[in-house]
C-alpha cells in the first residue's frame, strides 16, 4: 500500500505540469496557432518565478510566496508568448519558426540574465511550499494519503485549471469562438468575430499556463533552477496530441504518461519491479513505447484543429 501512495503522489509531480502545459497548448491550438514554444515559455515562467522566490525567500515563505511566484510565472509566460502571438498572428509568420526561435531564446536569455546578475546560471531556492498533509482532508483514510499528503498547492491548482479549461472551452461564448477560429477562421470572421483577438487570447492563455507549468515542474523536483525544463515542453506537446486537443483526454494522457514515467524511475525502490531484472535502459524506454502502443490503438479518429498552423489571411479562399 505504501508504494501505491508513493506512486500516486509521485505521479502528480510528472503529470500536473504536463497537464497544465498541455492545456495551455490546447488553448493556443484550438484557436489556430501551433505553439511549439511551450518549452521556451516554461523556461521563462520558471526562470522569472524562481528568481523572484530566491530574492524574496528571506523575507517571506510558504504558500504566500508560492502564490506570488505563480503570479510572476503566469505574467512572464504571457509576456513571452506575446512574441509568438505577434509573429504568428499579426505578421502571419511561420508558427513553427517563431516557436523554434523562442525555444532557443528562452534558455539563452535565462542563462544570460542569471549570469549577468549573479555569475552562475543556476538559481537556488528553498522549497518551503510542500504540504505535509492538508488539514482535515489529509486525515481521510486512503484518499487522504493518496491525494492530500506530501503535496503542493499547485497540484490542486492544476486540477482546478483542468476543470475550468474544460468548462471555458466547451460551455462559454469565448470557448465557442476560440474553437471556431481554430477550425475555420474565415467562418468566424464572416460572423464578425475578431479572429486576431481570439487567437491572441489563445496564445496568451497558453503563455500563462506554460509559464505556470514551468514553475510547477521545477519546485518539487529540484532545489535550484538551471535554465532547463528537460524537454518537458515537448512532452507536453505530445500529451496535447495524445489527448487529441480535448481537456478530458489530455488529463488521461497526462496521467498515463506521468504514471509510466514514475514507474520507470521508481522501479528501483519497488521490490517487485526491481526484482524483474529488467535493465534501467529498458525501464526508461517503457513510458515512450507504451505511449506509442496506446496511440496506435486510439488515434484512428484523431484530428487536429483544421486551421491550426495556418496564419489567418482574409484574402484566402
Amino acid at each position, binding site marked *: 500500500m505504501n508504494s501505491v501512495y508513493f506512486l500516486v503522489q509521485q505521479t502528480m509531480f510528472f503529470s500536473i505540469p504536463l497537464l497544465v502545459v498541455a492545456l495551455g497548448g490546447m488553448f493556443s491550438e484550438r484557436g489556430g496557432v501551433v505553439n511549439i514554444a511551450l518549452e521556451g515559455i516554461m523556461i521563462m515562467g520558471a526562470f522569472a518565478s524562481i528568481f523572484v522566490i530566491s530574492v524574496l525567500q528571506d523575507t517571506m515563505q510558504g504558500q504566500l510566496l508560492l502564490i506570488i511566484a505563480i503570479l510572476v510565472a503566469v505574467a512572464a509566460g504571457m509576456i513571452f508568448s506575446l512574441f509568438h502571438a505577434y509573429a504568428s498572428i499579426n505578421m502571419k509568420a511561420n508558427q513553427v519558426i517563431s516557436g523554434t526561435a523562442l525555444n532557443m531564446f528562452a534558455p539563452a536569455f535565462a542563462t544570460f540574465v542569471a549570469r549577468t546578475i549573479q555569475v552562475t546560471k543556476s538559481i537556488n531556492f528553498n522549497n518551503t511550499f510542500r504540504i505535509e498533509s492538508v488539514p482535515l482532508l489529509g486525515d481521510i483514510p486512503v484518499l487522504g494519503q493518496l491525494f492530500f499528503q506530501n503535496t503542493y498547492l499547485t497540484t490542486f491548482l492544476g486540477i482546478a485549471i483542468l476543470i475550468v479549461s474544460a468548462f471555458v472551452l466547451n*460551455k*462559454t*461564448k*469565448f470557448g*465557442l*469562438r476560440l*474553437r*471556431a477560429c481554430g*477550425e*475555420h477562421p*474565415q*467562418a*468566424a*470572421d*464572416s*460572423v*464578425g*468575430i*475578431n479572429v486576431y483577438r481570439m487567437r491572441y487570447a489563445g496564445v496568451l492563455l497558453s503563455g500563462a499556463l506554460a509559464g505556470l507549468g514551468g514553475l510547477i515542474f521545477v519546485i518539487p523536483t529540484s532545489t535550484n533552477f538551471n535554465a532547463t525544463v528537460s524537454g518537458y515542453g515537448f512532452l507536453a506537446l505530445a500529451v496535447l496530441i495524445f489527448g487529441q486537443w480535448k481537456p478530458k483526454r489530455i488529463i488521461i494522457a497526462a496521467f498515463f504518461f506521468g504514471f509510466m514515467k514514475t514507474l520507470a524511475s521508481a522501479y528501483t525502490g519497488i521490490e517487485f519491479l526491481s526484482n524483474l531484472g529488467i535493465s534501467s535502459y529498458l525501464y526508461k524506454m517503457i513510458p515512450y513505447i507504451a505511449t506509442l502502443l496506446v496511440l496506435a490503438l486510439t488515434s484512428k479518429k484523431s*484530428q487536429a484543429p*483544421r486551421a491550426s498552423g495556418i496564419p489567418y489571411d*482574409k*484574402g*484566402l*479562399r
Partner: protein
Amino acid sequence: MDYVIEMLNITKKFPGILANDNVSLQLKNGEIHALLGENGAGKSTLMSVLFGLYKPEEGVIKKNGKTIKIANPNDSNKYGIGMVHQHFKLVHNFTVLENIILGVESTKNGVLKMGEAKKRVVELSEKYHLSVNPDDLISDITVGQQQRVEILKMLYRDNEILIFDEPTAMLTPQEIIELMKIMRGLTKEGKSILFITHKLDEIKLVADRCTILRKGKYIDTIDVQSTTKEVMSELMVGRKVQLQVDKEPASPTDVVLNVKNLTVKTKRSKKNKLTNVSFEAKSGEIVCIAGIDGNGQKELVYALTGLSDVTQGTITLHGEDITKDTIRKRRVAGMSHIPEDRHKHGLILDYSLAYNLVLQRYFSKAFQKLGFLKHRSINTYSNELIEKFDIRSGQGRKTLVRSMSGGNQQKAILAREIDTDPEILVAVQPTRGLDVGAIEYIHKQLIRQRDEGKAILLISLELDEVLSVSDRVLVIYEGEIVADLDPTSTTEQELGLYMSGAKREAVS
C-alpha cells in the same frame, strides 16, 4: 428614389487582375436584385466588399444615402447586412446550432444559453421550411442542408440586407422553389436581397432588377420583367449564347460500364447506403443518375471510382472486373471522374494550374520519363488546355488554383477530365456554379464525347440538365434505382415523383 445600399465606383485589385473595375450597384429597398456575370466576373468580390471581407482600392458605400465605412463583417452586421457565401463558411465539427449562433451568442455571465437559441432556430426553420436538425454536426449533413444552415444563420441575425452568393447551386429543384418563396417572403417583410446566380430562370422568377458584370466591369442594370433571357445572357457574355441543348438522338453500341447488385454499407450507419444497384452504360450514350441529394449518389460514385470499398456486387469496365482495382488502375483503364467537391477532391489548390491539369496524367509517358517530369511538355499541354477550355486566371498556367474563381476552377477540372479521352466519364454536377456560357460549352463537350463513342455517367441534381442532356435517366432513391426513364418522354413533374419516393417502377 430611395436606395438602401449604394456601391459606387468600386475598384478592387488582386495580383494580376482587376476583379472589380469601377463597378457601381444600387439596391432598392425591398427589391430582389440579381447580380449576373460570367465566372470570374467579380461578383463574389463585389459582394465581399459590401460584406467587409475585402477592402476596395477605390469607391464608396452608402446606406440610405449616407456614406458608411465597412471594414469588417462586424461593421456589415451592424448595418444589417448578412451574406450566404458561395463557399460555405461553416465550422465542420460544430453542430448546426453552434454554427448559427456563432458570433451572436446569447449568454449569461459568459456561459452559453443554448436552450433558448435552439428554440429560436427550430422556430425559424419551421417558419421558412428550412428543415435541419440543430444538433447534427455539419460534417454529417449534406451540402444542401449546409446551404440551409447558411440561410438560417442570416435569418437568425435579423439582417435586413441579405446577400445570397449562388445559393441555389446546391439545391434540388423543390428546394429552389422553396427558396424563391422564402426570398419573396423576406422582401415582403421589408428586407432587400442581393442575389447571385447563373440561372437565368431563377432571375426571371424572383428578381426585380439585375446588374450585369463582365470581366470586372460594370455593363448594365436592367429591369428583369422587360428583358429576355437571351438578352441577359448576351449582355453577360458579350455574344449570343445558345440556351437550349441541341443534340442528335443517341446511338448506343456496346456496354462500357456494367454494375451488378452493388451494395454499400458503411461502418457508421445501420442502413445500406446502396442496395443492389444494377445498371449499365453503353458507349455513345449519356446516362443520368437523378435524385435528391443524399440518396446514395455519393456512395455510388465513390464505389465506381474506387474512393471507397464495395460491400457486395461487381463493377465491370469493358468486361473486366474492376471492383477491387485501385483508383489508378481504373483511371488507366479509361475511367474519368469529375468530382462533386472540387476543393476536397478535384484540385490541389496550392499547385499551379499546370500541375493540376496533369493531376491524372503526370505519370503517363507524355509527361514523364524514367520518373522525371517533363516540365516542357506539361507546360505546353496546359497552355493548350487553357486555350481550348478558356480557363481564365491571373497568371495563366502558373496561377495558383487557390486564387482562381470557382467557375474557372471547375473548368480546369473539366478540361483535365475530358481531355484524357476516357472510356467512361463519371461527371458529378459538372456545371455546378458555372455561367451560362460555360455551361453551354460543357454540355457541348459532353455531347461531343458521347458522339465520339464514349459512355457518360452524369450525376446531377438539376432537372433541367438531366432532361436536356441525358439519353437515359435512372432515378435513385434511398440507395436504390427506382426508375429507368426516357428523358424525351418524361416531365419534370414525373421525375420529381420518382425522386421523392412517391412512385417507383421495377428496374432490372
